């Protein structure tokens, strides 16, 4: 019989090495699939790494792809810390992108240094308010937010679809379902020459540091953690649980909304239906991989982004489909979850 015993204190080397060994384990597990596809795992991983970080172009692509993942990862990390199960990052992402398109395609024109913060704030509001709906339903009527946030994703996507086919369709788009471009004042400038890396990366990094400061050093962070760990005890100690969950929703939805702004005003320039290849959902994996730690979200987003970008280029060279990236990410998340459990508990036989 195997039992779990809580560890008194996990040694530092274990806390640090556990996620790394988990990821190595994930790669070893996934190599069986590559073998099955008839290719050499070593060669495949080498190509994957080269595609993710082997050249300046590869690196900048990884950074570009990591930008929205950092933001949606933070969104999931903060919400999950409060045990607010926000699966609606995708919907909030589009809410932010939609808001940026609505106010940023000519409706309002401001100087650049005002226009960009304005778009970010508006996008954050849109995302935050969208998450507020299921959160109020959860607080008032105990409606399960997993269901409502998930279903809101489809509502948002269909709503954007409708707008892009109708009221928001750009007349100059030659019939494609896409909105007008963000005006020049609102476009997030590139921060590395000859690459797609834009100001959104800086915004994401600042957001991660701010999120860490909030969670670690402020009353809000204390309340969010307390409510997440044990809502009954938090309520008994006089903390306002409902208000804390609403605040968490605004922060979380806001971060996902900013991701939408960053993609529409930074990477793409205009709103389309394929603006996000699932950044909202991938954010959940990013957050889990980072054990919900805001600073670790940066590393974890870079890792996921590297796998996605690297797998694209690997699959062009080898007979391994890009879906391997999804398998690697999923296996890594599972392995990291197991390794985190092992840092808090030790296994005992008998």
């Amino acid at each position, binding site marked *: *019989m195997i039992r779990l*015993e*809580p560890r*008194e*204190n996990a040694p530092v080397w274990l806390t640090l090495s556990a996620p790394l060994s988990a990821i190595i384990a994930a790669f070893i597990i996934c190599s069986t699939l590559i073998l099955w596809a008839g290719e050499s795992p070593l060669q495949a991983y080498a190509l994957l790494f080269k595609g993710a970080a082997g050249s300046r172009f590869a690196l900048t692509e990884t950074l570009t792809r990591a930008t929205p993942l950092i933001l949606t990862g933070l969104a999931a990390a903060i919400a999950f810390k409060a045990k607010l199960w926000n699966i609606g990052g995708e919907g909030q992402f589009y809410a932010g992108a939609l808001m940026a398109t609505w106010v940023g395609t000519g409706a309002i024109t401001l100087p650049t240094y005002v226009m960009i913060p304005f778009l970010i704030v508006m996008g954050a509001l849109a995302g935050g308010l969208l998450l507020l709906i299921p959160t109020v339903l959860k607080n008032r009527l105990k409606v399960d937010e997993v269901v409502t946030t998930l279903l809101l994703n489809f509502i948002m996507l269909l709503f954007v679809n409708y707008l892009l086919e109708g009221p928001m369709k750009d007349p100059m788009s030659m019939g494609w379902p896409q909105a007008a471009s963000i005006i020049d004042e609102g476009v997030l400038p590139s921060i590395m020459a000859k690459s797609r890396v834009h100001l959104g990366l800086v915004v994401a990094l600042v957001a991660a540091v701010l999120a860490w400061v909030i969670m670690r*050093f*402020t*009353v*809000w*962070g*204390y*309340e969010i*953690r*307390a409510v997440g*760990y*044990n809502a*009954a*005890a*938090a*309520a*008994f*100690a*006089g*903390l*306002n649980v409902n208000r804390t969950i609403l605040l968490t929703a605004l922060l979380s939805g806001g971060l996902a909304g900013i991701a939408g702004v960053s993609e529409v005003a930074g990477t793409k320039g205009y709103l389309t239906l394929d603006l996000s290849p699932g950044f909202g959902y991938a954010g959940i994996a990013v957050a889990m991989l980072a054990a919900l730690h805001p600073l670790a979200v940066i590393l974890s987003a870079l890792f996921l982004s590297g796998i996605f970008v690297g797998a694209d280029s690997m699959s062009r060279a080898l007979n391994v489909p890009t879906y391997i990236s999804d398998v690697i990410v999923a296996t890594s998340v599972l392995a990291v979850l197991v390794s985190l459990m092992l840092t808090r508990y030790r296994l005992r036989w*008998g």
Partner: protein
Amino acid sequence: MPPGIVVAGDLGKSKMTAILKLVNISKRFGSLIANDAISLDLNAGEILALLGENGAGKTTLMNILFGHYTADEGHVEAFGKQLAPGQPDAALEAGIGMVHQHFSLADNLSVTDNIMLGTEPLWSWKQNTTAARLRINQLSKDFGLTVDPNALIGTLSVGERQRVEILKALYRDARILILDEPTAVLTPQESDDLFETLRSLVNKGMSIIFISHKLNEILSVSDRVMVIRRGKVVAEQPIKGADRASLAEAMVGRTVHDPKGEVLTSGETVFALDDVSVASDGNLAPLSNLTLAIKQHEIIGLAGVSGNGQQTVAALMSGIIRPSAGSLRLFGKDQSTFNPAIMIENGIGRIPEDRNSVGVIGEMTVRENLISEKLRRPPFSKAGFLNAKAIDEHAATQIKAFDVRCQGTQEETRLLSGGNVQKLILARVLDANPAVLLANQPSRGLDVGAVAYVHEKILEARTRGAGVLLISEDLEELMALSDRIVVIYHGRLSQPLNPKSVTARDIGLMMSGQSVAA
């Protein structure tokens, strides 16, 4: 006659032979030695009391006996045969039955079904309920364990459920019965009934191990007592000649004083319930027309069998619920808003019943839990930012003042022992100098040393001027500490009683709803 039942005539010849032997049992968990070469002999037809504080190793020993753990060293012999280690079935087959503190009965099944559960072969088409019922009837007649075999468990009282648990063991031909803290959930009357049952069981040849930390019970029911402290047997003696003080000392390892409050005159009313009713909401029992006044310098003891409304009173005082009728007054003023923050602000200190899941947040550190009730107040936070220095200093002072044993203020609270968690809560609550103190089961499950500490602190608060409501299921505790005792039964309160002029028996009767001629 089933093989498990030894008729009274066998008693004489089997009297002094050990039928159960635990030989040199040792068990280590990491660096902790839970059992250190413990040997135990149980003779036929005796009640052996196993006395020890929480964490002394009693439960580990019983888990080894039942094969839930494998001992690192030593072995178990029942009726001369060695039991296979690590196999729960082995103990059952050898005729050892256990009645746990928390019953394992299904509420929606009948007594007969519950007793048969697990004894029937898995691959059988039909149940032989009639035969089982006859046998249960016979057993309950033989041993004086009256219970209706057709009754649903959900309709039975706690005492009756315990009888079902004992019957369940007898039905499986147990000849050795182990009871783990069996009186924790019983009223004094039910406890007396249980002791009578136990005596009649041993008279009929059963042997019993009785695990408890209540000295009076052990003195009145057992034949022999074994005291375990820190995994070692520290005393073993026949009950004749044993006395309370020396057993307590053996159990704790030092002298323990009974709590004594100094004589004080009570002052103004600080907290009052005036004709308060609360409608039932499914989780909490309803209250009807409660009137209660708590004055400065006094401890009111609230007695009652659990589930009669004392938790509703506690929830009211904690600010978790509001009265559906009547008023709650603090310092003479009607309270109109009800939430925990308001109650804390108004000077009500609250020690919750469930210290681990309501009192503290286990995943947060000691220093964080110490400020959970005053998070937004200076100096602990300023402009929304936590003041780490103030929090650290506060924590360092508090854990020293209240003797909270931890590896440091950064340790996660879940890793603390029950007694230390309670000290942490006391530190948090008493630091605010509350005018009213709610102590809800403050000593339940704590070891003797920690209990004495909790009592001392409650008495200190009383001396300082706090009005205290002490909710407890331990009548000894209530009688020792309270200035007045009220009994709650089905959501109604009795008149206040003077603990010096009533007996535990009277209070016990009132707890079961019978009025006592004063």
